[in-house]
């Protein structure tokens, strides 16, 4: 994995695109990351604001939540290799469409102040 440290519960999680991500639903955005975890990609790093994390995104709208909320649903977020503050929301390989849909609902839609060009 990109870092051994556990992400703090209060770390923000940003996923590029407008929630609930109808264009590429969470369920079909999951795969085995080369770091050895299964899940979907996000941007996450301790201490960074949503606006800062969103600079990794070209989308004008992003979804924002916290590591704590994802953990409360029984999943986890871990740093993984990739661009900028890439991390993976780890989910079970046998999770359902319904659980993916529920998870997508906890992302709040936020305007990206500085979309990447």
């Amino acid at each position, binding site marked *: 994995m990109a870092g051994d440290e556990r992400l703090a519960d209060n770390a923000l999680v940003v*996923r*590029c*695109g*407008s929630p609930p991500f*109808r*264009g*590429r*639903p969470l369920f*079909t*955005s*999951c*795969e085995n990351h*080369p770091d050895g975890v299964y899940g*979907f*990609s*996000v*941007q996450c790093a301790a201490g960074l604001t949503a606006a800062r994390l969103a600079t*990794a*995104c*070209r*989308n*004008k*709208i992003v979804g924002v939540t916290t590591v704590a909320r994802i953990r409360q649903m029984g999943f986890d977020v871990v740093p993984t*290799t*990739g*661009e*900028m503050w*890439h991390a993976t929301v780890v989910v079970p390989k046998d999770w359902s469409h319904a659980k993916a849909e529920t998870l997508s609902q906890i992302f709040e839609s936020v305007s990206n102040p500085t979309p990447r*060009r």
Partner: protein
Amino acid sequence: MRLISADFNAMTEAGHVRLTLPCSQEGIQRLELGAGDWAWLSDSELIVGAQLAIDDRYGLVGVPDWDTLVHLDDEDAEDIDHSRREIATLLTKVPHSDGDEPRVFQLLTVLEHVAPLRTDGPPVTLGFRRAVALRQMGKLRLALLEAEDARHERPGDPIVDFLYLDLLRLEDLPSAVAEAEAILESPTVPALVLSGCINILATQAEQTPDADFTSMAERVLGLCRRFDQAPDVDQVGNPLAALSYFNRGFVLLRAGQISKARQAFDRAVQIYPDGPMVDAVTGLQTYDRRAREVAQRVRTIAERWVPPMTVAA
């Protein structure tokens, strides 16, 4: 449009888009794409042209050309009427300006996804006009991709065939020669397409070794005569008519027929006095490196050709 669903969150350290996700794999398999191919990647909010490649760590990735990024969810998509009026103005603007082409590409892409346009008159495919815009932007591989799709939609359309042939000439000359030879087997080839074939074979003639040049020159000059006799030769327009004379002039110059070459160049300049390199062409006396450079510049006539198009808002 060769479209692959992509997740722009799944980016590698190098800024490439991972395409091993299930949402991407479906499109890749359906379109039978692999490393080296070009396609459009989209998450339904963004769309961008990309070349597929293999990353040692991540497997299949898309290498985006971010110059071709279009937002499908911005104000252009929200105010469709305004976008339609703007594209109608741009597509019928006289004189045409290359500076407008990125905007033309952007609007056509948004409208195709949000509210497809109706078109009047040739050509009727928006993919074709997007190919023209991408060519003017210097995105030749993506332009070729769009032109290939336009050819499937409008088989036998001379305007589409001309654009496709010239893009192929610029990107893959051997394939362009093969395609031109296949087209020329037909006894009824439109003058516009003949013009494209002449340009391809004349480009090939420049690269032909001296030992094989005579037969190649005869082939080009024969095609030029066929072009002159085509029933629709009057419809190709002055720039492309002049280009056929420029091409025969360069072939004659290399063949050592200086007087005939100069006659061809003079005729070209007479037809299209505003063409590129006019002074340089008329001063050519020998076929040398300078002449080849001038020929290359003159052939930008084909690369700059933009067909007329009107749009019903």
